[in-house]
């Protein structure tokens, strides 16, 4: 057994009773600060706890994301839940097990090393002792801090972790039970919709309440605080009808017009930016005499496009505000809501309930802020806010558009020896905590415009995420242009900058391979010494029956893409086969991944596959549209996503892991899949398209130019 250092989440939340309790005979209560966002994390956490404690998974009940009950683990994001939160839970459970064994050894007068736990029962040299967690629970206090002294169960002894486990949350969803925050009902609850301020600084000039009441065809009331306007009523149908009609009966002043030019990523290149360089300095100009290649790639703003619009409930009773949300971080949201309403954080409880998959920072936090504002105006009445579809598309934070210009100096063999990635992007992080709630902007004394920033490199970076290629290139640098003012509010979407950066890097490598007259797979392997990276590329090539030298420009294409997410999470390589006529038809996808210690292999494969399909949708179809009035892609017809008949068959292999560290998988495939599609389209066309999405218009223009 190995003695571990204490994981960060345990350092921040050291008390063991924050994590584990034995509330009743045969029952184990686990608490985690990570939340279920459709990725199956609670099932995996139950496996981790069951394994380390030595109990059946069925005994475990999990509380998650509750500021009154669970540890503060920040946000559930960045494919970090198992890599960090799961490891913390594992350590806490190991220590709890050790404390109980120590107590049992004392009672039995024996050496703890002779004792073991089997489904909660304590055994001595294989025989039951008559003691178990529950009989000893009164004698063992968990009101103490974790110490890092407990020994972890060796992974070679695992019987639960590493095996497929069925999703605990799935039956409720298959049988149509109340499973989502949208399904929550409180006694005396009122429905509410917000009449959104068109933009920061816009002021509410007039409201024709009578006209809105007529449209409601039912009883409604108005809540107005500064420039924050909401419609509230007992009948959801009336409230909805009023909300649909309201924008036509409200006059705003100070609305800043937008321009269709702003929907193109190239708009970023003309904007002021905050610049920095990471990596080795630019080589002297004399070094540029050698062969050089340069290409510029881009992607437009993307919507999270969660299948359900955001929803929240809030209740303000006796000076205490309780908020139910599907946001990714209950503690940061509590801080932000308390700040917005000038409440003591201790007077605010935030509880997580499941929403539809969010894939990042969507409207969840803002809907929670809406409900909180309204609830404090109507004390005693539980308020349910459910955004409208159009509202989610128009006002959720978007993934920023990005431009990535890659330039390389090449050696005699055509391989890069000096590499520069120049990246233009809005911020990838405007999560709550620094005044980023929409409702706050409409209240009197709005917070100042947040200082533009991006996640630090230590956190995996934002626009720069995966901007540094994993290949053996002697000199590399990233020039990051953070564009502070963007036409829409931007924040985190699955993988942040990883998808566009990997798309750029891996398409650029194919361009270099082509110039060098080499096969793309061989070209990559020739400059990649990381053995785990090589292994996923070699494996996916074998899975796909990759053969060098297939002719280009035939209408059928094959392409490969590879990345290690954040250069420190899971490795993934993807091969795509597709046909292109006027549009792209995906035929088959293969993926090989190395995710280290995998808790629930079926769950990991589900995540890897979901990442591939979502990425295919981004790359082939998605772009937030902007006209003079703002976002104009307000429904599923103007913001189409991949449909069932467009989804290819996908084969995924998880490679056996070395070592016992889990590596996050949720965001690992999006970049490689995007690049593989880009390279396959280029192979099929015999010409490169470097701007996403790969629409019919761009394909036709490329064909006509040939």
């Amino acid at each position: 057994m190995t003695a571990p250092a204490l994981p960060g989440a345990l350092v921040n939340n050291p008390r063991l009773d924050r994590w584990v309790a034995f509330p009743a005979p045969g029952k184990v209560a686990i608490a985690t600060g990570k939340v279920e966002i459709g990725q199956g994390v609670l099932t995996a956490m139950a496996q981790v706890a069951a394994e380390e404690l030595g109990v059946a998974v069925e005994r475990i009940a999990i509380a998650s994301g509750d500021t009154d009950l669970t540890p503060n683990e920040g946000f559930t994001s960045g494919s970090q839940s198992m890599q960090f939160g799961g490891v913390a839970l594992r350590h806490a459970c190991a220590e709890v097990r050790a404390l109980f064994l120590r107590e049992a050894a004392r009672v039995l007068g024996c050496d703890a090393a002779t004792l073991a736990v089997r489904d909660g029962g304590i055994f001595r040299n294989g025989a039951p002792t008559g003691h178990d967690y529950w009989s000893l629970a009164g004698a063992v206090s968990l009101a103490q801090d974790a110490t890092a002294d407990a020994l972890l169960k060796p992974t070679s002894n695992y019987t639960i972790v590493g095996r497929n486990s069925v999703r605990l949350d799935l039956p409720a969803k298959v049988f149509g039970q109340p499973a989502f925050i949208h399904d929550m009902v409180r006694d005396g609850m009122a429905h509410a919709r917000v009449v959104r301020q068109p933009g920061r600084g816009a002021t509410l000039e007039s409201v024709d309440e009578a006209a809105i009441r007529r449209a409601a065809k039912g009883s409604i009331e108005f809540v107005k605080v500064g420039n924050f306007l909401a419609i509230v009523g007992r009948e959801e149908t009336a409230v909805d009808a009023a909300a649909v009609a309201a924008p036509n009966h409200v006059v705003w002043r100070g609305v800043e017009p937008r321009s269709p030019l702003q929907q193109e990523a190239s708009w970023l290149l003309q904007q002021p930016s905050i610049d920095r360089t990471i990596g080795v300095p630019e080589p002297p100009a004399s070094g540029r005499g050698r062969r050089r290649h340069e290409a510029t790639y881009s992607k437009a703003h993307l919507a999270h496009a969660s299948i359900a619009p955001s929803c929240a409930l809030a209740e303000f009773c006796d000076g205490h505000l309780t908020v139910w949300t599907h946001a990714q971080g209950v503690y940061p949201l509590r801080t932000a809501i308390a700040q917005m309403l000038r409440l003591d954080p201790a007077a605010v409880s935030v509880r997580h309930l499941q929403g539809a998959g969010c894939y990042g920072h969507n409207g969840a936090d803002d809907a929670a802020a809406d409900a909180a504002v309204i609830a404090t105006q109507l004390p005693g009445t539980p308020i349910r806010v459910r955004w409208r579809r159009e509202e989610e598309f128009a006002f959720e934070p978007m993934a920023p558009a990005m431009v990535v210009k890659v330039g390389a100096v090449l050696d005699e063999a055509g391989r890069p020896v000096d590499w520069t990635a120049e990246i233009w992007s809005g911020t990838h992080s405007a999560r709550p905590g620094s005044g980023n709630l929409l409702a706050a902007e409409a209240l009197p004394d709005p917070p100042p415009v947040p200082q533009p920033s991006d996640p630090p490199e230590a956190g995996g970076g934002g626009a720069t995420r995966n901007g540094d290629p994993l290949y053996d290139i002697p000199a590399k640098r990233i020039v990051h242009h953070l564009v502070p003012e963007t036409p829409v509010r931007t924040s985190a979407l699955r993988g942040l900058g990883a998808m566009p950066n990997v798309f750029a890097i891996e398409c650029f490598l194919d361009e270099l391979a082509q110039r060098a007259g080499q096969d793309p797979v061989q070209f990559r392997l020739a400059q990649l010494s990381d053995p785990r990276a090589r292994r996923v590329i070699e494996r996916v090539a074998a899975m796909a029956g990759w053969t060098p030298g297939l002719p280009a420009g035939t209408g059928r294409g094959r392409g490969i893409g590879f990345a290690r997410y954040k250069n420190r999470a899971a490795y993934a390589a993807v091969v795509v086969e597709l046909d292109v006529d006027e549009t792209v038809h995906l035929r088959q996808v293969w993926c090989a991944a190395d995710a280290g210690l995998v808790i629930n292999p079926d769950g990991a494969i589900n995540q890897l596959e979901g990442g591939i399909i979502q990425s295919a949708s981004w790359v082939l179809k998605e772009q937030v549209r902007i006209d003079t009035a703002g976002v104009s892609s307000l429904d599923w017809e103007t913001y189409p996503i991949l449909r069932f008949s467009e989804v290819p068959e996908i084969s995924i292999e998880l490679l056996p892991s070395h070592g016992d560290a889990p590596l996050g998988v949720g965001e690992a495939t999006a970049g490689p899949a995007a690049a593989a599609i880009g390279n396959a389209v280029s192979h099929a066309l015999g010409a490169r398209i470097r701007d996403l999405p790969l629409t019919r218009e761009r394909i036709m223009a490329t064909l006509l130019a040939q």
Partner: protein
Amino acid sequence: MRCEQAMPSRYDFTVNGRAVGVAVEGEETPLLNVLRNALGLMGTRFGCGLEQCGCCMVLIDGEPAKSCARQIWSVAGKAVTTIEGIGTPDAPHPLQQAFIEEQAGQCGYCLSGILITAKALLDRNASPSRSEIAQALDDNLCRCGTHNRILRAVAKAAVRLREGAGR
């Protein structure tokens, strides 16, 4: 001219085989709101309210229909089947069984509507091909990327239903 605040009217229909009569203020009230708010049947989900995503799919006299914009007056006298009506944990429909076996879900928000559409498909086509299943589900959106598992689960349920019918 329509009254500003209509008197509640009563509409009678059946839901999952049970006769219901609901009094609602507007004849334009969406069936979805009646199911969720008046009848407490939360299984039918709100997705867009624009008849574009399929989350709110129900069967009306056996035909799949989006309930989010389906006005209540048009349902009077008809038979509505929701996700709660096709099976329960104790007596699951073969589709529900297959979705659990294939672990065909991520966030699961779209599943109610997809199961309903799939049931309507299998009711009229006992052995659909992969592409026929995909075509039938094209009106249902899934954002998590669980499509292939869902296609496999529907195909598996079709086999089970055929085997059951053959016995």
